[in-house]
């Protein structure tokens, strides 16, 4: 190869490098800006409504009459809270016990078997969970409600919470497993060598040490559950009313957005109201995410 060809080759290479690097930078900037775009886009859209009514009025009024221009989000917020909190109460203990089991007790054959199970559960689309809820959980709750003296259609807050809790199990479980694995082995061995049983070690060393991590795993679970749409929408009943018990129908925020997307352009302010609902979701989920991640980072530093 003569010198000219060589230097041409070199220029070609550095050009290529520059091209790739600049495209990478474009991608970086795009993704870094995306969360802000998301927030701003929704905010701008909801400003139309926010100019008309005060934010407190919107958040704490329960009058929902889009045709009359009354937008009170309280029933939806309360429903969302019910479903989310209930689901974390159902799935929390299951995930915690199972995470301890998988990290400290389970035999190898069981691990080999359960890891694909968790992966598949994580991959099942939410609409399938919804179908499952309609087929299995709805009749079950209807019967259970009747025998407890709360006759209902089966499409209730509790149904939504059960379906949701199964959905977020793989998510919460994976984080919990990581959190518990992160507890230094030395501490565990020290406790065992002092004569503590395995369970005592778990209770007094591992759970205590992993406590912030466990809380943040639940926090992340809450943020996941809060925004889940289709599966909940299919089983929760969708009645605009502040629910007063678990055997009543509810209408969570994501369901509100999903159910009304068709008619929102025909009623003034309605699309702005739905975008405001999306903004609430965005803000709540982000706060829970930030809080949980902060807790994890903080705890890591302390260990």
């Amino acid at each position: 190869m003569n010198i000219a060809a060589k230097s041409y080759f070199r220029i070609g290479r550095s050009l290529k490098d520059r091209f790739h690097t600049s495209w990478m930078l474009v991608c970086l900037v795009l993704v870094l800006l995306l969360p802000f775009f998301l927030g701003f886009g929704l905010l701008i859209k909801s400003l139309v409504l926010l100019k008309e009514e005060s934010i407190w009025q919107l958040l704490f009024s329960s009058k929902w009459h889009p045709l009359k221009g009354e937008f009170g989000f309280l029933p939806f917020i309360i429903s969302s809270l019910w479903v989310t909190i209930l689901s974390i109460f159902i799935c929390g203990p299951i995930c915690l016990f199972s995470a301890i089991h998988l990290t400290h007790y389970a035999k190898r054959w069981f691990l080999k078997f359960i890891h694909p199970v968790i992966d598949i559960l994580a991959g099942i689309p939410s609409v399938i969970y919804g179908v499952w809820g309609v087929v299995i959980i709805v009749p079950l709750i209807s019967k259970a409600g009747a025998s407890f003296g709360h006759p209902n259609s089966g499409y209730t807050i509790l149904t939504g919470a059960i379906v949701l809790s199964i959905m977020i199990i793989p998510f919460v479980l994976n984080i919990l497993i990581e959190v518990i694995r992160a507890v230094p082995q030395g501490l565990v061995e020290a406790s065992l060598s002092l004569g503590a049983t395995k369970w005592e070690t778990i209770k007094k060393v591992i759970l205590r040490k992993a406590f912030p991590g466990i809380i943040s795993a639940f926090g992340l679970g809450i943020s996941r559950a809060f925004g889940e749409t289709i599966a909940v929408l299919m089983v929760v009943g969708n009645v605009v009313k502040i629910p007063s018990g678990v055997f009543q129908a509810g209408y969570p925020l994501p369901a509100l957005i999903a159910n009304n997307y068709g008619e929102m352009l025909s009623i003034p302010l309605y699309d702005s109201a739905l975008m405001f609902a999306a903004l609430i979701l965005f803000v709540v989920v982000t706060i829970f995410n930030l809080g949980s991640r902060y807790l994890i980072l903080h705890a890591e530093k302390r260990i």
Partner: protein
Amino acid sequence: MIRDVIRKVEENFFRGVMFLSSSVIVIALLLIVVSILYKGLPSLSWKMIIETPKGGYYFGKEGGILNAIVGSLYLSLGATILSFIISLPLALYINVHQAKNGKLVNLVRFLLDLLWGIPSIVYGAFGFTIMIYFGLRTSLLAGIITVSLFIIPIMVRSMDEVFKTVHRGLLESAFSLGSTKSETAYKVVLRQCIPGVVTAILLAFGRAIGDAASVLFTAGYTDYIPTSLSQPTATLPLSIFFQLSSPIAEVQNRAYASAVVLTIIILVISIVSRLVSRKYNQERIK
């Protein structure tokens, strides 16, 4: 003595509770898969898979869900390709070019985790606002853009997890042999991690095909197979959702059958990605 007995009993009790919790998870999966198959298989037929809906399909007449199957595949494929073009360079960039810039890398990872946590309905609403802003109508293209926004964080983070494991020494030796950073990224690091990248793509594809909330606003719904990017498209999750809300038993049965189709697609994706990572992990330079 008694204390020891109590300790033993407590230990065994909680061991039982823990095993039970793990079993609940396994049983839940079995219950989901079995009940979907049990409900859906009887009404699943070839006709459903190879025909588009005919007139009166949603009242129990002839037809199938080919429009939704093909629509979903188009949409997820498009979204996967679009997000791949953005995700791969970004994941390589933070692991090769900026590998020493810990602060930036952590910031990017943090933001990506944040984005991953944002519910798909919010992406849907956001996609809808963009769509209106640019004067687009519900279409395959709008759906693809929205879904790819939604799967980019998933794809980047899963690729990132793989690239992270590449040994620093490998980077250093590639640099010292005179290769540029991009060459190192695409010819050394990427080649090392092909199976991981494939798994990440499959994971994102699975998410794309299964998500309903983000396409609800943007992709629309139609009985026909889209022939261009500007046409609306049906998707499988939405088709299940719509058919299930029908009061007619026959249409509901079709919803169950469609659910079987979607479940099978997801299971196949999951199995393939497992096989890929198992087969190629043996060929890695450790």
